[in-house]
Structure formats: structure tokens, C-alpha cells
């Protein structure tokens, strides 16, 4: 067996490992995160906070989707979800899942479809 060599490339997987402290997937409140979930900051970045956490908080003063955050921060979905889980647990951001066309209990949301339709027709 060969001795593992120290990684010379701090980007890619090693970078993700450092960012997430080796955690591979989000748990709890972040496990339902969707690419279209909107993230909104609920507090200011705290001093000494991990750079990426602070960056997320700054970018989400106005609601921003998880997909947009991933694109701006150049982070894959799973890595971002781990970071978002930290912030959600600390109450620093809020997550709003996309509205489905129909809710389990309430049936189809016709008003929502009507709203989307009139928006599209104005384009």
C-alpha cells in the first residue's frame, strides 16, 4: 500500500472537504432543500464566521434561490446544502420551499396557476 500524498491541489474535493468539515450531506431542516428553495437572511453575518457562511448571508438579504447561490458561489448543490443547514440551524437564514401546484391536503391551487399565467402573458 502506498502512503497517501498530501494533496497539492487545494481546489475541488479537498476544498469541499474543508468547507464542510468533512460532512457529506445535510440533515434536519436542510434535507428538503430544493434548487428552487428561496433563502432569506434573518441576521447579519457574525464576526469570525466562516467566509462562505457570511457570503451566503450577504447575498440573501433579498430572497435568492439555492440554485442561484450555488452558481454565484461556485459550489455544488450538496456542499451548499451542508453550509445552509448550519445557517438554518443557527436561525441566521430562513428557507422557503417552492410552492407546489397542489398541496396534499388542499388539492390543486388554481389561484396560483392563474397568477403564473397572467404573469407569463404579460411578458
Amino acid at each position: 500500500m502506498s502512503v497517501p500524498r498530501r494533496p497539492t491541489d487545494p481546489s475541488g474535493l479537498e476544498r469541499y472537504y474543508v468547507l464542510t468539515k468533512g460532512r457529506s450531506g445535510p440533515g434536519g431542516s436542510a434535507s428538503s432543500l430544493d434548487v428552487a428553495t428561496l433563502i432569506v437572511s434573518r441576521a447579519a453575518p457574525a464576526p469570525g464566521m466562516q467566509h462562505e457562511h457570511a457570503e451566503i448571508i450577504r447575498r440573501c438579504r433579498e430572497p435568492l434561490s439555492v440554485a442561484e447561490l450555488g452558481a454565484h458561489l461556485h459550489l455544488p448543490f450538496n456542499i451548499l446544502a451542508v453550509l445552509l443547514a448550519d445557517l438554518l440551524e443557527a436561525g441566521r437564514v430562513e428557507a422557503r420551499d417552492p410552492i407546489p401546484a397542489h398541496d396534499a391536503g388542499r388539492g390543486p391551487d388554481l389561484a396560483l396557476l392563474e397568477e403564473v399565467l397572467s404573469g407569463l402573458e404579460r411578458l
Partner: protein
Amino acid sequence: MDLKGFDQPGSAAAGETRSVKVMIAGGFGTGKTTMVRSVSDIKPLTTEETLTQASADVDRLIGVADKTETTVSLDFGKISINDSLVLYLFGTPGQERFWFLWNGLFKGALGAVVLVDTRRLASSFRAIEEMERQNVPFVVALNVFPDSKDYPVEEIRDALDISPHIPVVACDARDRTSSRDVLVALIRHLKERSAVVLESR
């Protein structure tokens, strides 16, 4: 730039902003990225997911056992419906076997557009199967290329083996209005389906 203090709550509209999502699916090279681009309000972006060697199954899937990192991307765009509602459009990767990467990619979507290139109908079979399997309501959009033949819609419907209530519309994915019209057809279809559900109660 509007730099709001955190001690003041944001504008009411921003505070209540909600999102909906629509998927743009279809076979390899059928014009998914083109459609997302043409109809988006923002410069379309790409979000990525990384496959790691940790998953041997995935490595076998993509046939690169010695590769440690593979990136699969998802293009997306957004349309402001009104002050408090944003529509996100996601163009799925052409290789359907990567769809599992994004935690329930189709879950919570209003519906999907399945793009079809009539010169290569079969390339969209998998996308249609997947919509049916995951119960995602969809419309079929025939992306017209210069050398596309004009097939009767019934022939296409038959070849795709889709039920008669599913709308089939022609479009030019490069054109904003044409792509918008496909989305309109999808939402109208969703409304009709909802009306049927509500009536049958």
C-alpha cells in the same frame, strides 16, 4: 444598490417572495438550454453537482473509474411573475441518468416541458417515461429545426405513445415569445387538469 439594514425588515414584497419551478426536459440536444436562455429574465446560470469516487455505482455509471470528480450541470433561468412570485426554469441535463443527483429534482415542480426534436423522436422517450413515472404533468414541445419535417400531430402523439389529453405544441426554442407560449400552454394544461380534479370531488 439597495443596502437595507438588518434591523429593519425588508420590503413587504421581498419578505413574502415565493417561488415556483418548471422543468425543461427532453432528449440530448433538443434545445433545453436554448429555451431556458431565451425566456429567462436574468442571464442564465448553471448550478453544479459533483460526483465523487465515494459512490462506486456512480463511477460505474459514467464509466470513469479512475476519475475522482465529475461535474454535471443544471442550467436555469428565472422569470419574475409579479412583485412576490418568481418562476424558476431548470433545463435538465441531457443525460437522464444524472437526474437523481439533485434531491428530488422534479418534486415540487408545477410541471414540465418535454422538448422533442422530430428528427430524433426516440431521444426524448426517456424524458417522457420519467415524467410519467414521477407523475409530473407535462406538455410536449416540438422544437422545429430547419430540416424538420411537418408530421401530423397525431402521428407524433402515436409515436411518443402519450395520452390524447397531453398538449403537443410546436416551437422555436430560440425565440422568447415562442418559448413563452410553450410555458403558457403548460400552465393552461395544468389548470385544465386541476379543474378536472376539482370537479370529480
